[in-house]
């Protein structure tokens, strides 16, 4: 219990400290330390959950079960590794004068603030608070997107702000509707928005209201997931913000939004008795998957390209949860982990690559393997992993998704297959010239810390070869929560 509180308090404190004290030489290191502490506490919290089941704070405000505990872990881990990466990276940015101290202050404090909101969103038991936290995440990151103050970055920031704000507002309306439905079941109760309460009364909730509510929630949180056609903010925000930001944005934020949607699906599908949420999610997932995969072929900016790949994978997960059934759901849950690990690793390498080449434009980055093998190879391997090649974990989840799809929705397999091939081609046609071949003149190695990438890829590899017992049990419990029956 203490661990959970600490997990939330440490980032909170850090946010304030950074905001008050401002930037100094070792801010980066402190940032790193804080993240390490958060990770440690979240780890002990996970152990706690593993030993004696789901965790409920006295105020019923926070609730950690099998579904969100591993996401908390992933969050803390990615936060930590990204902090490792961000220290030299941002230092380099300061050197070349892209950001000044004031903005570094903003950066660090908002970095922690962002992690805080993520963790709150994950661990909270109150659906309203969930919304508040997700909105808070937007607010925390919006200034970081426009950190460089270039016209592009400002434009990206504005779009991110408005689109997500409007979207999230709809989610709030959805939440209100859910609360409204809940109030009829348990009138006047203060805890009518508590997940732990609602999930027991799910069956009694009013279907018609919940149908409307789900539409609003899907459109709202879907904007944050980056579902086509609500995705337009995503590539801009990813490509224009500082790379550590992009890493945690597509590594964590999208996951959280998806987590929210799935939570609501767990709540609403039993109430409805039909499969409507599933159908909607399948539709959105398929659309996003295909469109993003095709658009990959037109990318000129390396970070933008990978943000599209994020859209594609979020679409895949949405599809998985939409299809439902233990296989697909297990695959989706697993994919949440492996994707956020792999994608953040890729963004780390991408950041270094951009420093090596001094630009983000794809056709200026060449021959990385020759210039700096460590970056080149890890970049290559990362993309191989995200493209779904074994023995990396992404393959495992896609394997599950495929076998579930061909069982449940044989016809969906055709677009799925084409989409995967198209997306793969889109990634590699850009990747190959970047890593292979002769480097152009003036492309010099940079000081890079490849530990995060190595760590992530190793974990992903591990998950691909053999899923550890702990995790598989959690995932299975989560699967049971979502679709009622598990695999083990």
């Amino acid at each position, binding site marked *: 219990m203490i661990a959970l509180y600490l997990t939330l308090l440490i980032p909170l404190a850090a946010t304030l400290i950074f905001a008050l004290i401002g930037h100094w030489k070792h801010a980066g290191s402190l940032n790193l330390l804080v993240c390490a502490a958060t990770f440690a506490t979240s780890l002990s919290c996970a152990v706690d959950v593993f030993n004696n089941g789901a965790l409920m704070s006295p105020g019923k405000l926070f609730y950690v079960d099998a579904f969100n505990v591993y996401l908390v872990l992933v969050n803390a881990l990615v936060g930590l590794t990204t902090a490792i990466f961000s220290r030299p990276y941002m230092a380099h940015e300061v050197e070349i004068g892209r950001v000044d101290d004031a903005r570094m202050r903003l950066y660090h404090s908002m970095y922690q603030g962002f992690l805080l909101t993520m963790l709150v969103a994950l661990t909270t038991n109150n659906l309203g608070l969930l919304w508040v936290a997700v909105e808070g995440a937007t607010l925390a990151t919006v200034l970081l997107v426009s950190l460089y103050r270039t016209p592009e970055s400002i434009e990206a920031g504005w779009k991110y702000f408005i689109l997500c704000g409007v979207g999230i507002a*709809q989610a709030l309306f959805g939440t209100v509707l859910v609360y409204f439905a809940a109030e009829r079941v348990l009138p006047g109760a203060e805890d009518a928005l508590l997940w732990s309460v609602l999930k027991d009364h799910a069956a009694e909730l009013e279907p018609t209201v919940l149908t409307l509510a789900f539409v609003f929630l899907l459109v709202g949180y879907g904007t944050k997931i980056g579902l086509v056609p609500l995705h337009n903010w995503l590539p801009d925000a990813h490509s224009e913000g500082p790379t550590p930001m992009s890493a945690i944005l597509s590594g964590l934020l999208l996951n959280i939004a998806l987590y929210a949607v799935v939570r609501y699906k767990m709540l609403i599908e039993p109430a409805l008795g039909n499969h409507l949420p599933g159908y909607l999610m399948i539709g959105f997932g398929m659309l996003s998957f295909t469109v993003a995969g095709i658009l990959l*072929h*037109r990318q000129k900016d390396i970070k933008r390209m990978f943000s599209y790949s994020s859209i594609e994978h979020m679409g895949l997960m949405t599809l998985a949860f939409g299809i439902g059934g233990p296989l697909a759901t297990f695959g989706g849950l697993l994919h949440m982990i492996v994707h956020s690990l792999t994608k953040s690793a890729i963004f780390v390498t991408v950041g270094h690559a951009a420093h090596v080449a001094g630009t983000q434009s794809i056709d200026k980055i060449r021959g990385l393997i020759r210039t700096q093998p460590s970056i080149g190879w890890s970049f290559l391997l990362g993309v191989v992993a995200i493209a779904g*090649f074994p023995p990396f974990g992404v*393959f495992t989840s896609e394997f599950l998704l495929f076998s579930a799809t061909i*069982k449940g929705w044989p016809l969906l397999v055709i677009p799925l*297959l084409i989409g995967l091939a198209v997306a793969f081609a889109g990634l590699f046609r850009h990747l190959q010239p970047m890593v292979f071949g002769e480097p152009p003149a003036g492309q010099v190695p940079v000081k890079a810390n490849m530990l995060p990438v190595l760590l992530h890829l190793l974990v992903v590899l591990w998950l691909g070869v*053999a899923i550890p*017992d702990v995790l598989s049990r959690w995932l299975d419990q989560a699967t049971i929560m979502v679709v009622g029956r598990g695999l083990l």
Partner: protein
Amino acid sequence: MPLSLAFTAVGAALLSGLLPLVRPGSNAAARLIAFPLLGISGIFGMIAGGMALGNTQSDSIVLPVGLPWLHSHLQLDPLAGFFLAVVSLVTLVAAIYGPAYVREYEQGPQPLLPLTLFTGLFVAGMQLVLLAADAFSFMIAWELMSVTSYFLVAYQHQHEVNRRAAFIYLLMAQVGGLFILLGYGVLSGFGHGFDFAHMAAATLSPGWSSVAFLLAFVGFGMKAGVVPLHVWLPQAHPVAPSHISALMSGVMLKVAVYGFIRFSYDLLGGIHWQWGALVLFVGSASAILGVLYALMQHDLKRLLAYHSVENIGIIYMGLGLSMIFAGTGHQALAALGLIAALYHCLNHALFKSLLFFGAGVVLQQSHEHDLEKMGGLIRRLPVTATCFLVGCISISALPPFNGFVSEWLTFQTALQGPVLENNILGALIPVAAAVLALTGALAAACFVKVFGICFLGLPRSEKSAAATETTPGPLAGQIVLAVLCLLFGVLPTWTVGQLEHIARLFFPGGMPETTAHGWLWLTPVSSQVASYGAPLVLLGIGLAWVLAWLWMHPRRRRFPVRRAPAWDCGFGPLNARMQYTATAFTMPIRRIFRPVWPITESYRAPTAEEQGGRYQLKIGDWAWLKVYEPIGRLLLTTARRMAMIQGGNIRAYLAYSFFTLIVLLLVVSL
């Protein structure tokens, strides 16, 4: 017992890949560690495979890795054993051939490490594919094989063409992998489990089983390189290092064949003759088109790659026949066809890797890719030339070498067509046999061209005139394979006897009396119907030769051979440019089969300022022009259209989410 040996083999292969990582800097270390381990892996694999081929019951094991509810099953039955032996044999030879061969790359820009690393993983991947006994492990091993070979193709990535080839290869491998995955998905859906035992137990409706079959056919065909899924082969093989080309073309394609056999014979079962007809048709098409395209190539390794397409086609013809007979209940004949196919797998592995090794030496010593620049190399590289000649004879299916036996068996299977009740099928099968005959004849023509242009005549460039014989290592590798080509050609009975263990797995009903008449006679159906005494053929040729030689002997002493310049019709001495070129050699065939290739020909007559006209000939590939390029164009146009939704105007974006909301609300409140 065999399984543990097989594990040793896999382990050694993995080690040969990973161990050099401890000394990343040094090329020598990589070379000295990797190849011996690869050889060890080959040896153990051969022993394991041989033992597994021998014993009837397969031994299996379950390792605690993989999915939590599906640990990875591994097993080794005669089928897997046979292919394991083939893979390991070529691996062993590659390990003999490699060390001296890769020295050239040490001067190159790339370190040796990636090469050795991915070679080891590649071999391990292939061996694991053969051992895997559940869909998940199979797919993992399969994709491991694909990815590592991708890195090997892309090893010399400074050339744009290599990157392009690697890209196309990996893309098609990926798509193929997805197809296979779906095939397994169907099976597991009906069999309620991902391990082969459950899948084999699954009972499918004819429709679904045909779907599964088609998925697997496309998936494995993509890797095996049947027309029109072959386009990656002629691009990937030429650019990979030669011993890798040998492994890929000689062995990896066989692993694909293994997958196909495993899927359709073992897991799917209940074969329909229509499948066989499809396989036979596609096989024939691949065979004939493969050889016709090969005839037109000038790049030695590209030519060999197209010949892989041809030989895979022949293998598929054997499989197709076997399936047709199996589908119509003629078990013995089905077994015969399967045996023929498997035998050809072995043979192709032998002579194709032999040819690739030879080509590697030629390329390395003469520094020429283009046949038109070679010539007269037999005097510079006598041993290589001899081994290459053996390879040429074998691949042209000429007795008494190994290629002939398997094609002969295929013929014999085809000739049993009339036993089918379905007359049309019975008539079409011999036509397929005629296609096979045409293929063989064209292959012979092609390899007369290759050997004649490359090794005989006068050298067409300084570089090839200055070529020198290579070091013992590569030579030893080639000699071993050449000897094996002859052995497997002369002792077919023993080999077939071994292969019958595999056929018995799937056709317990009946066995052909192929080996019933002793080691001397190969009698596919009965001694009355057809017989082939390979040892006697060799003996007879030798006998006639000796007789002729003895007859000549006294005269030889009286009139020793006199050397003189060749007859030049009285004008000028002969020079290299007067010789027939590869292009000229194949001109008649080009003219006869004109529509088969997209040909662009241009001739500029000699002008005042330029002596000598200029003749240009470009041979494309219809499959590429008519199937793959349109797809690519379609994709790009779609992308351009789709990009319109992202015009950059935020109000438009808001409108999207607005209308999405409206539409959804309408939908749910309807």
